[in-house]
């Protein structure tokens, strides 16, 4: 899961990173800092896994008032 500040929400951490990158000479804009959560789920299929992870995001991993999330599934048979 990739959890990050929603569009339009001020991200002071992203701003600090951006200004540091600029000081280093990189020409960057609109830096935003989020967080990645990797985990394993044991599900029957991809749809079930996605549904379960969505519930995790809604209940705990993201605060829907200020954060959006994206889910990426990787199949790991075995």
């Amino acid at each position, binding site marked *: 899961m990739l959890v990050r500040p929603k569009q339009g*929400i*001020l991200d*002071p*951490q992203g701003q*600090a990173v951006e200004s540091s990158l600029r000081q280093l000479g990189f020409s960057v804009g609109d830096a935003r800092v989020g967080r990645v959560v990797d985990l394993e789920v044991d599900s029957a299929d991809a749809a079930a896994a996605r549904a379960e992870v969505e519930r995790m995001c809604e209940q*705990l*991993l993201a*605060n829907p*008032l*200020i954060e959006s999330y994206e889910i990426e599934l990787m199949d790991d048979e075995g």
Partner: protein
Amino acid sequence: MSSPQPRIGVLRFPGACDDRDALWALGALDAEAVFVWHTETKLPDLDAVVLPGGFSYGDYLRCGAIARFAPAMAAVSEFASDGGLVLGICNGFQILCEAGLLPGVLRRNESLSFVCRDVRLVVERADTPFTTRCTEGNRLTIPVKHGEGCWYADDALYQELVSRGQVVLRYAEPVNGSRNDVAGVVNDKGNVMGLMPHPEHAVDPLLGSADGALILSSLVESARERALAAV
């Protein structure tokens, strides 16, 4: 006439650090304050609950995000939905927001710096159970100490809260980037309040200010009235 001491529970989470100050301050203001451990599934017989400041569960993920699932929090939610008085201070405020008992969310300070100093506050509402000892427009001096006290609500929610009079305290000066300088809010029923400043650290002039006692003694008084009404 002697009136009974109201019984106020102070929740203890791993990582809390202001629990003893809260217990002491409530006791000094004539309440019987008792600790409630976070694993308790039932609250003892209480007239009010205080969620103290600190860094419950190391502030992992988001402040208060883990603590809200502590067994005692289910009991606190039930207590609140039955109309019980609940006050969250600093980390307690963050927990109540994450638990959905209070509106909005507390985010990283706009400056990204930890703020630790006395701040001036303006009382917007003196008719809540937590501010009866104050008067509207009162200026209070109470310390803050937080890295994540920037209260946020989107436009629609903020306007709704203002129109319902749920903003109780505002900073009289810029502190952390909070939306419209909001420092403390109540829920729509008015029985749950959260604030970032620490009233328990300002109950004696020796500590620089006794203004925090106005908030806590309001709570003690309101809890006492409820205890008497229940007899």
